[in-house]
Structures are given as structure tokens and as C-alpha cells.
């Protein structure tokens, strides 16, 4: 494994030629990403869950809202292993709830709502947070006012805001988008409006530091406008910290929605979400532990995989790590 000794002084001074062919950035990101087992698993799980909640109802066609009182309190199929008397049925592999709704169908439908809330709220959070963070970090004049504004929003409790929003906007939203979509917009909106502050602070901090970096100065010297600097140079560089807070944001949005369901200010009662399934199952968790486990596990695993995915993406997107 010895390097060929340079036979001429010329070679001695040349940099070792890069031999691999040029690769696209995304290929590179993927290569780095591949090394992170947790991220791969997390990403895989997330894709699986997303596909499952999106298309699961095509395969498992039972209506999640359909009540079947005769078939209530069916245990999941695997309980038969240790308890041969258990009421199980292949028609409801994961059992049914106290009104005979199929749990599998509910998990699928609930996941769709939870994931949609999570993603939408996260994207909204990131949009607001990034905009405010960039403006505050880049334009010195805006920094003070925007940061005070951030303090202000931080001190607003989410619950009163939601209640106010519900009373003010539910009617028009319901009229325009229907009860479920209207509530969805409302919840996503409120979560988005009350949780962007963390992202804004992170972005602002990073922008403040990046702004002093030489490549920004170089871009400015090359005649790039502020707009160009923000979009071409700064934003791509705050991507990896943003990624982390985005993944956390997704997780908190899912959890916040479930807390709202628990407090009874969320979706209509027959509209399943993981949070509501969990909340509904809590009083019977001794007799039917699977009913809390199922949505609980889904929430936890999703959050966990999102977190791992975020870790992996951060590593993959950070050129300092990728470069070495």
C-alpha cells in the first residue's frame, strides 16, 4: 500500500489527482446518509408508514368509522397465542374497540390525519421560522423588533390561542373547507403560528455567523444582491440545522395534536387520529392494553424515526462531515 514515489519533482508538488468521477450532490448526500443505520431504519419506517397510511385503505378496505356492536372488544389476533379463550377474529386482526370499530382501519385512517397534521404544521413552522430568522439575522434593523416579536409569541400560550381561533375562524373554515378540513387548517395554523420561534432563533443565530463568513463577502464583492446572497448562499447553509428542528417540529406537532384531542378541542369525535385513539383507550388500558399500545407505538416510532432521520440528514447535508 505504498504510494508510488514521485519520480520527478514536478509530480512531487502536484496535488494528488482526484480520480473518482464527479458525482452529483444528492448522490453524495445519499452515500453519507447510507452510513447512518438509524437514519436508514428511520427513513425506511417513515416511508413505510407514509405509504401505509396513504394507501393502506386500498388494501384494508374496512371503513374505520363503521361500528359493529356485535364485534366489539375483539382482541388482536396474537392474543390467541396465550389466551385461547380470547375473542379474536381474522376479520379484525388488530381487534376492535368498544364500539366495534376495526383497529387496523382506525390506525391507518388516524395515521393519515396525524401525519398530515405533523407534516403540514412542520412545513408551516419552518416557513415562518426561516423567514423571520433570516430577516432578523440578515437585516440588522429588523433584528431587534423581530426578536421582541419572537418573545411576544413565545409568551402566548397555545391553548387560549386555539380557543380564540376556534371561535373566530371555525365557522368560515367549516363553510369553505368542510368540518374536517377546516379543523385541520385551524390546528395546523395554530400549531404553526405558535411553534416557529425555536427555528427562527436557530436560523437567526446561524445567519449572524454565516453573514461574517468570507464566502458571503466574496459573493457581495462579486456583485450579488442581498436577495441572491440570502437565497443562494445563506439558506442552503442553514439547511442542516433547520433539518433538525424540522424533525423535532414534526414530532411536536403530532404530539400537540394528540394533546388537543385529549383536551377535546381537536377534530370531530368520529375522526380518528393517533392521539385521539390513545386518549380514548387510556381508561381501558388495563383490560385492553393493545389499544393504547398500538397508537402509542405508532406515535413513538414515528417520532423516533423522524428523529433518527433528522440526525442522518444533518450529517449527510453537512459538507464538513460529508467532505471528510
Amino acid at each position, binding site marked *: 500500500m505504498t504510494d508510488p514515489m514521485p519520480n520527478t519533482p514536478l509530480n512531487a508538488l502536484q496535488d494528488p489527482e482526484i480520480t473518482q468521477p464527479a458525482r452529483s450532490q444528492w448522490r453524495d448526500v445519499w452515500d453519507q446518509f447510507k452510513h447512518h443505520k*438509524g437514519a436508514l431504519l428511520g427513513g425506511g419506517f417513515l416511508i413505510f408508514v407514509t405509504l401505509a397510511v396513504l394507501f393502506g385503505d386500498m388494501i384494508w378496505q374496512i371503513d374505520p368509522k363503521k361500528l359493529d356492536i356485535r364485534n366489539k372488544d375483539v382482541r388482536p389476533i396474537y392474543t390467541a397465542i396465550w389466551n385461547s379463550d380470547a375473542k379474536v377474529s381474522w376479520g379484525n386482526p388488530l381487534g376492535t374497540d368498544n364500539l366495534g370499530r376495526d383497529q387496523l382501519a382506525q390506525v391507518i385512517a388516524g395515521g393519515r390525519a396525524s401525519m398530515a397534521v405533523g407534516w403540514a404544521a412542520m412545513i408551516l413552522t419552518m416557513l415562518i421560522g426561516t423567514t423571520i430568522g433570516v430577516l432578523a439575522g440578515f437585516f440588522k434593523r429588523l433584528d431587534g423588533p423581530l426578536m*421582541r416579536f419572537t*418573545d*411576544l409569541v*413565545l*409568551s*402566548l*400560550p397555545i*391553548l*387560549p*390561542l386555539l*380557543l*380564540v381561533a376556534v*371561535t*373566530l375562524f371555525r365557522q368560515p373554515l367549516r363553510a369553505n373547507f368542510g368540518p374536517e378540513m377546516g379543523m385541520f387548517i385551524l390546528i395546523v395554523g395554530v400549531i404553526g403560528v405558535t411553534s416557529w420561534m425555536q427555528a427562527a432563533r436557530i436560523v437567526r443565530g446561524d445567519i449572524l455567523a454565516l453573514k461574517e463568513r468570507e464566502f458571503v463577502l466574496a459573493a457581495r464583492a462579486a456583485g450579488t444582491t442581498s436577495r441572491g446572497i440570502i437565497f443562494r448562499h445563506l439558506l442552503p447553509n442553514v439547511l442542516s440545522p433547520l433539518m433538525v428542528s424540522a424533525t423535532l417540529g414534526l*414530532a411536536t406537532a*403530532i*404530539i400537540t395534536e*394528540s*394533546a388537543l384531542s*385529549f*383536551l377535546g378541542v381537536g377534530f370531530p369525535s368520529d375522526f380518528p387520529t393517533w*392521539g385521539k385513539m*390513545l*386518549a380514548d383507550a*387510556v*381508561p381501558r*388500558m*388495563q383490560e385492553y392494553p393493545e389499544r*393504547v399500545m398500538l397508537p*402509542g407505538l405508532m*406515535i*413513538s416510532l*414515528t*417520532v*423516533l424515526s423522524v*428523529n433518527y432521520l433528522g440526525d442522518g440528514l444533518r450529517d449527510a447535508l453537512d459538507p464538513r462531515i460529508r467532505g471528510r
Partner: protein
Amino acid sequence: MLTYTIRRLVLSVPTLLFIALIIFLLLQLAPGDPMAQVPLTVPPEVKQKMREALGLGQPIHVQFWKWLVQMFWIEPQVFIDWLTNKSALFGWLPDTNLYTACGPTVEGPCDLRVISWQTRSPVMDIVVQRLPQTLWVVGMAYVVGILIAIPIGIYSAYRQYSVFDQAGTFITMIGFSIPPFFTGPLLIVIFSVQLGWFPFIYDTTHVVDDWDSFVFQLQQMLMPVMVLALQTTAQISRFMRASMLDNLNQDYVRTARAKGLSEAIVVMIHVLRNSMIPVVTVIALGVPAIFGGAIITEVVFSVNGIGQLLITALFANDLPMVLTITFMFAVLIVLFNLIADILYGLLDPRIRYD
């Protein structure tokens, strides 16, 4: 440093006033009428009179001004009176009597405190009543969470990607993602129902005066504290780990090792001290949240702290209560932001504020 602190404090006054105004306006938007509970039979003129007694029906800016006066002028007077008359610490001071309560027997000028619409009693009194349990349970949970989180964070970072690190990440994330309305009942079923070890209805009237009552206090605190601490632990340990990782690769760590210092000293003194700087500020920033952020846990264990007070007030349309509590949160947030900044300056000699 002192100038900086004073400057920030002075600057925070307009910020707070502004925040108060925004909250006030926001709550005005919210529907709510304190006269909702008054029966129909009361004639409208009387209702109007009652409204006026509560300061309603006046133009918004007058109402706001009135609230400000009550909050910043009258309540402090009450507090000073209490300090000089009743409190153990300052009771030796000559008794003051700045505040004259309006009451059925009082003639002449009197001061009206911020009155809750729901209970018709001063808001501040109720808030003060709620402080002990909030601090015992929610505050303690924060402390416990931090105490658990920091060692976990340190060790996870020191042995990055080890089994401990992976398991720690896994467990803390699970802890982070499981809502308290599940963990709470779970603990209750296990520890109260099955094992019968702890009571789960929090007794807010319990007074700690001897060892036994202290033990009881610990028992009744344990479960809510555990539920809440789980979340704190999850978050702080992530921060701690990240911060440690940042510092473990610094040049000064190599210098310390080159001096022949043992690993324990290198990690626990050189690295930890630096890593704590950002974490301490994160911890300070989290303090305001503990006062309001535990609503669900408070409901599950009937702790009835400030979070529960806020939510009942909200549902009962008790505007003065909501306004006061939210404003107190805002004060805490602004204050702890300042504290976090000052702590940063104190902990990190490189930062100088002047």
C-alpha cells in the same frame, strides 16, 4: 455587566407593556361575558352596573389602563403590606397600610384589585395559593429531569455511538414522544392501583412539618414528577450530548490531555465546564414553560397548579385571570431570557456585555 443588566431591564418594560397590550386585545377578541352566569331576571340596567363595577363596558383603552394600574400599582401595595405585616422575613419592618380594600364596610376611597370573574376574589391571591404545588411538582420535575439528563448527556457523548448512547437516545426519544395523558394513568395503574405504593390524588393542603409528612409529600409528588421529568430529561439530555460532542473535539481538550490529566478531570472539568454554558442557558429558557406547560399532568393527578388554573379560567371566560396569568408568563419569559443572557456572560469569560 451591571449597565447591561439595567439596560435590558429598562428595555424590557416597553416590551412587556406591548405584550400585555397584545394579550389584552387578543382576549378581547375572544368571546366572553362575565355576566353570562347572571340570571335573566336581573334587569339590564343592573347588569350594566355590575359590568361597570368590573370595569367592563368602558372603552378598551380605559379598561387596559385600569388593569395596568391594578397590576402595577395596587397589587405591589398589597404585596408590600403583606411583607411588612405578615411575612416572616420582613415582619419586623413597621407595618404599612398602603392598600385599602374595597369592601362592604368600607367608606371613602378604596382600591380595587384585579378580581377574578369566576370566584370574585383577587386573582393574585389565587395565583399565590397555586404556587406551592406548582413549584413542588412542576419545578421539582424540572430539577429532577435536569439532574438525570446531564449525566446521561455526558456519558452518551463521551461514548458516542456506544450501546449506552444508542439506548439512551432511544429511551429519551420514547419519553419525548409519549404524551403525559398516557404515562400518567400508566403510572397510576402500576404504582397506585396494583402496588398501592403512592397516592395519586395530589393533596394540595398537605403541610410538611415533620419527617412523616415529608415522606408523604415525596410519595405524592413522585408520580407527577416522574411523568414530567421524562420530558425534560429527553430534551435536556439531547442538548447536553450535542454540546459535549462539540467540545470533546476542541483543541484545548488535547492540551489538557497532553498535560497528563486523567480522563475524569479532562471530561468532568475541562469539557463539562465549557459544555454547560449553552446548556445552562437552555435550562434557564425552559423555566417559564414549567409554570404553564404541565396542564395535562396537573389534570391527571389533580395537582391543580397554575396550568390548571389557566385552563379552568379559560373555559370559564375568566378574563382577568387569564390576562394576569398570561402576562405573568410573559414576564417570566422576558426575565429568563435576560437571565439566560446574563448567565451566558457570567459563565463564559469571553462574552462581555457593557
